[in-house]
């Protein structure tokens, strides 16, 4: 057999077949390096920080760099296409606060940027109904994007990914717009307000993905979506509330994505203990589940593989505590995930969250182990 291209390797795994090795992803949704960890890795590799400006794909987050040299170095099988925000729509800075195009206020403290408050806080239903939702055509631009995707697909030979253009999902975004405590209570006390907010977010998100995938849909093999539905021990909201408020929106968005990129798999990121709704996510059209965080309750890799391995492709898994331990612990963690998830294909190895405190030696070791031990 001639050597597989990165994309062929990914497609075999997506089709639940064993390729030459487990495909590896890095620098995607929730698998970036936090800036400090990125700088340490550059230093460790002896790479200059002089020209890294061109790898910064955003500002105002704790993880802002997409350095394609790392993807080449580690033989990562995926490359990403980003939907660019227009210069005029970028975050407005006011002292240590930033306001984004939703009207959500973020506050910078030390090296961290955190959510502070949202535009729908404290409003009654008329106030919420009167909120002016952002117009995606004024915020994002797609000029030249299709050509860029086609060129990257040809030149890289890698699987192409439509990078999550909105970062936050339905529950996340609604919490940011309304204030988490209030939105969580709205779900039970003011369901009309909760529904209005979710519908608004759905309309915006559908339009954003429409813009993006109209340009790049034919070239991508994976489309990223995400939400944060799980805590460490359980879902944040009950399966009942999830099914009533969130799932219908997921179904609608995923249907639109499939129309625009019929060949692509839908990737869904949700941290935490989400096991009780995995069958719902599958019904809603999710093909690839990330990050299957092993330290969360009920998310044991072998159990997930046994119960959902035929319907889902798993993505992620290499957990944070081990990465921050010794190099041997990091390698052992990679082997654990491969042992549990790789048999029969259907697994893309990646981290279970952004890389944070892992020493650079461990980052290098993680991908080295994935390439060698991941051989079928």
């Amino acid at each position, binding site marked *: 057999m001639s050597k597989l291209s990165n994309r062929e390797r990914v497609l075999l795994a997506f089709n639940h077949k064993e390729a030459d090795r487990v495909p590896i992803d890095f620098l995607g949704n929730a698998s970036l390096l*936090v800036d400090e960890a990125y700088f340490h890795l550059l230093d460790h590799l002896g790479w200059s920080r002089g020209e890294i400006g061109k790898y910064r794909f955003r500002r105002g987050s*704790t993880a802002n760099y997409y350095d394609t040299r790392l993807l080449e170095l580690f033989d990562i099988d995926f490359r990403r296409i980003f939907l660019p925000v227009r210069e005029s729509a970028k975050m407005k800075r006011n002292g240590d606060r930033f306001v984004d195009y939703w009207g959500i206020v973020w*506050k910078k*403290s*030390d*090296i*961290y940027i*955190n*959510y*502070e408050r949202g535009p729908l806080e404290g409003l009654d239903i008329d106030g919420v109904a009167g909120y002016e939702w952002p117009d995606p055509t004024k915020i994002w631009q797609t000029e030249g994007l299709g050509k860029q995707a086609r060129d990257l697909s040809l030149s890289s030979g890698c699987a192409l990914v439509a990078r999550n253009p909105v970062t936050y999902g339905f529950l996340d975004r609604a919490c940011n717009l309304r204030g*988490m*405590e209030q939105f*969580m*209570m709205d*779900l*039970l*006390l003011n369901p009309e307000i909760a529904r209005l907010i979710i519908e608004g977010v759905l309309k915006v998100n559908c339009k954003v993905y429409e813009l993006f995938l109209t340009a790049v849909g034919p070239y991508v093999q994976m489309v990223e979506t995400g939400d944060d539905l799980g*805590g*460490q*021990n*359980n*879902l*944040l*909201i*009950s399966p009942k*509330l999830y099914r009533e408020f969130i799932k219908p929106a997921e179904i609608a968005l995923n249907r639109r994505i499939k129309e625009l990129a019929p060949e692509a798999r839908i990737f869904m990121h949700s941290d*935490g203990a989400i096991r009780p709704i995995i069958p719902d996510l599958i019904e809603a059209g999710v093909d690839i589940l990330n990050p299957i965080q092993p330290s969360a309750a009920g998310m044991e890799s072998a159990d997930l593989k046994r119960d959902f391995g035929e319907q889902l492709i798993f993505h992620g898994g290499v957990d*944070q505590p081990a990465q921050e331990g010794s190099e041997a612990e990091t390698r052992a963690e990679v082997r654990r995930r491969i042992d549990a998830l790789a048999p029969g294909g259907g697994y893309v190895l990646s981290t279970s*969250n952004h890389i*944070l*405190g892992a020493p650079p030696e461990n980052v290098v070791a993680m991908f080295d182990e994935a390439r060698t031990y991941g051989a079928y």
Partner: protein
Amino acid sequence: MKAVLDSIYESILRGDIGGTPARVQEALEEGLDANTILQQGMVRAMTQVGHLFEQGEYFVPEMLISAHAMKRGLQILKPHLVEAQIASLGTVVIGTVQGDLHDIGKNLVIMMLEGAGFDVHDLGTDVSATEFVETVRETSPHIVAMSALLTTTMPKMKATIEALIDAGLRERVRVIVGGAPVTARFAEEIGADGFAPDASRAAALASSLVS
């Protein structure tokens, strides 16, 4: 058990934010003493809410509305508790650590602590080590409680404990920590006195540390 205490219990469990203060008022009018209402109505209810949360039957929304119902009831009860000179279990200084603006978990812990009978001094979010130290110096609490949602801000918990040591205050308070990424092992590593995985267990932990 008086029927009105059961109705307070039920209204908190259901998260009846409007109804709970009225139930508490009724109990007071029936001549029940404030501490009985607190213990056998409200604390009992919040303990059950905590159990239901731990067992995975209640989620964040259910717990929040119960906690708000409890809080509204407590507003009615507070003057009567003061009047009856019911001693609080102790004082807790609480905050989300520097760099972290997440407060839902912390707010739940506060409501559970108040429901359990603590006085709580809330420093809010993005609280620096210096601010914790100053407050401990000024208010001499029994417990310092720190919250973090982000793995990136967890190290600030350690920094705060170190600042308490440097200020010579560490021996005077018990330190407890919590938040999604925090583990018992982490708590032990940074020299905290305790860790709780959720709000109800945080209140139980605090009670055990002052008893």
